[in-house]
């Protein structure tokens, strides 16, 4: 059960991580991180 404040979402046990995968795919995450390359506080080099 995920309480979102505006609604309560019920998902089968163990399925919540898939929602995260849908919300933020590995590729989207990598692209977002690359877009922050100029941030001096968060640089990884």
């Amino acid at each position, binding site marked *: 059960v995920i309480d979102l404040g505006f609604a309560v979402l019920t998902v089968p046990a163990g399925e919540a991580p898939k929602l995260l995968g849908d*919300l933020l795919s590995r590729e989207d995450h990598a692209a977002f991180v690359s877009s922050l390359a100029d941030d001096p506080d968060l*640089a990884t080099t």
Partner: protein
Amino acid sequence: VSRVVIDYHLLRDVLAAEQGRRLTRLTTTNEVTTTNLYYVRLCKSVVGSRGGTLTGSWAPDRRRELGRRLLELPDSIVILPMRLIGYRMAELAESQRLSTLGAEAVAAAEHLGASLCVWDGDDGPGIREAARSAGVTYRTIPL
């Protein structure tokens, strides 16, 4: 207990249960930790995400709320408070010319006696060298 500090890419995969073989082995044989700034960076990604097949039609504020809940870290994932490593981070940032994020990663691993593990696509020479200088084991992990 052996420990690992994982970066935001690996943390995303752990939380999304999309772990490859090496990451699975790493997380099942070690206590898993990450850093405040790795966590913040992952949160920033979710805040800016547009979602996929399941969540792409959701309104942005509802996607963000879902993301907030999904990114609540389980108690098993440790984050060191800044009060324990803040000064060491400043030293590392000054002496090794690291970003704040990089300094926290190395300082946390040093403090915990942990290995610092990053996605191999984000292997940074600055953090790698700083880890070596601090005596921290630095490992790259494929997704």
